[in-house]
């Protein structure tokens, strides 16, 4: 394991343990006297209308797959960002070509209305 990553895992362990410990501790400290009125949704909530596992519209799928594609694009930018100083203007030109090709696809998808919600 590369040395610099140990603090990351300490951070992760604290992040996981904090809510777990807080919730378990609160469960034993707080008084627990539920009644029907108390358990109702109030102020910031409406009554449940139906099951949340309903079928979604296909628009979500287009958004998701476009997200994955631009995610992969971002991955290709990561090595460039890390080596920015060394690569210089040559790197900028290479990445510009890469981005222009993808921007064509983005503009086309936008013009086609793939990103429109209605």
């Amino acid at each position, binding site marked *: 394991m590369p040395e610099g990553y140990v603090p990351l895992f300490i951070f992760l362990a604290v992040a996981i343990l904090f809510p777990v410990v807080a919730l378990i501790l609160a469960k034993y400290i707080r008084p627990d006297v539920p009644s029907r009125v108390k358990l109702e949704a109030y102020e910031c909530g409406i009554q449940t209308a139906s099951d949340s596992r309903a079928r979604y519209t296909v628009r979500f799928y287009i958004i*998701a797959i476009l997200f994955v594609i631009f995610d992969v694009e971002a991955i290709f930018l990561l090595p460039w960002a890390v080596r920015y100083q060394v690569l210089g203007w040559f790197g900028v030109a290479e990445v510009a070509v890469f981005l222009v090709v993808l921007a064509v*696809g983005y503009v086309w998808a936008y013009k086609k209305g793939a990103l429109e919600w209605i």
Partner: protein
Amino acid sequence: MLDTVFFYLFTLLTLGGAILTVATRNAVHSALFLITSLLGVAGLYLLLHAEFLFAVQIIVYVGGIMVLFLFVIMLVNLDAAAAQRQFSRMWPVALGCVALVGLELFYFLGKGEPAFRIAAPPPVPEPTAGNTERIADVLFSQYLLPFEIASLLLLVAVIGSVVMAKKRI
């Protein structure tokens, strides 16, 4: 020592997540356990000093592909499939696979401790340059053309996905 502890931790995450992925009935829960498994694999990449793959695994697989998986699960109606009896005709195949893997396991258990020894971690190539920097150096010089062609491939993916999904709206 610390590496060994992390290795077993990530292996547990990977295998446990994988088992729960196939064992749960609810498809959404399966997808969430698959995320756990993929995070474990990301940890194993980190142990092998492949920091770039670690980032790719988390950003693309856990962040992107799994979101797509969840959307696809919600697009199709899986309620009927969850109620059905699953894999009823495939159990002899499964039994055969389990027997084979079990046989393998017992063979190596018979060989004793050396068969289970974890390979020593590879030596860090150059302390000055990290994994991502080395990938950048090669990607932007030797593999420049494949890098630019990759953008064309992504463009094809954008157009293909929009054309295929648009027809159905």
